């Protein structure tokens, strides 16, 4: 299946709309049990879609220089409001040192004296292709 560039952009921009004006990135332990670190995203968080691709605004740097707790990071999530509960994410990624997770990080243990940064993020709505096989 193939979709138009216009529809790609509509779908990609809808992600940014859902993320909203007061969004955060948060790093959690397994099961979203403990929030280790968080940082506020820009408003809007992503730039306008181009060919189905939205890019996170990382200027200024998205970082937490004083993590709230120490622990092993297993989840990276984007939230649409700073007041959201841990389960109310818009995007959620798995973090693990091994296997084939969304985020493969050799050292995923966060200390309260660390700085945690989200340095880039793009989301793509693929164009697809008509498949006759």
């Amino acid at each position, binding site marked *: *299946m193939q979709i138009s560039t216009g529809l790609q952009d509509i779908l990609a921009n809808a992600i940014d709309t859902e993320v909203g004006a007061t969004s955060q990135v948060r790093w959690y332990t397994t099961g979203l049990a403990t929030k280790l670190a968080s940082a506020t995203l820009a408003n809007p968080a992503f730039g306008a879609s181009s060919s189905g691709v939205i890019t996170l605004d990382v200027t200024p740097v998205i970082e937490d220089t004083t993590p709230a707790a120490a622990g092993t990071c297993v989840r990276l999530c984007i939230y649409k409001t700073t007041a959201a509960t841990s389960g109310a994410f818009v995007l959620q990624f798995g973090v*693990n040192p091994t*296997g084939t997770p*969304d985020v493969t990080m050799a050292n995923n243990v966060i200390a309260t004296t660390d700085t945690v940064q989200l340095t880039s993020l793009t989301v793509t709505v693929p164009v697809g292709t008509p498949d006759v096989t």
Partner: protein
Amino acid sequence: MAEQEGTVGQEATRALRLEVKGTMRIIDKDGNVKGECDIVALDDETEEDQQ
């Protein structure tokens, strides 16, 4: 001619799966990078915690 029905299958829905790429890092108090990595995700992955 008999009426034909078609089914929109898994391959069609896969065209809409999101692709996410990015980077994150953890820096210790001395400024050393403890961990720096790529974020690569497709929205059809449903793996549970591996720890």
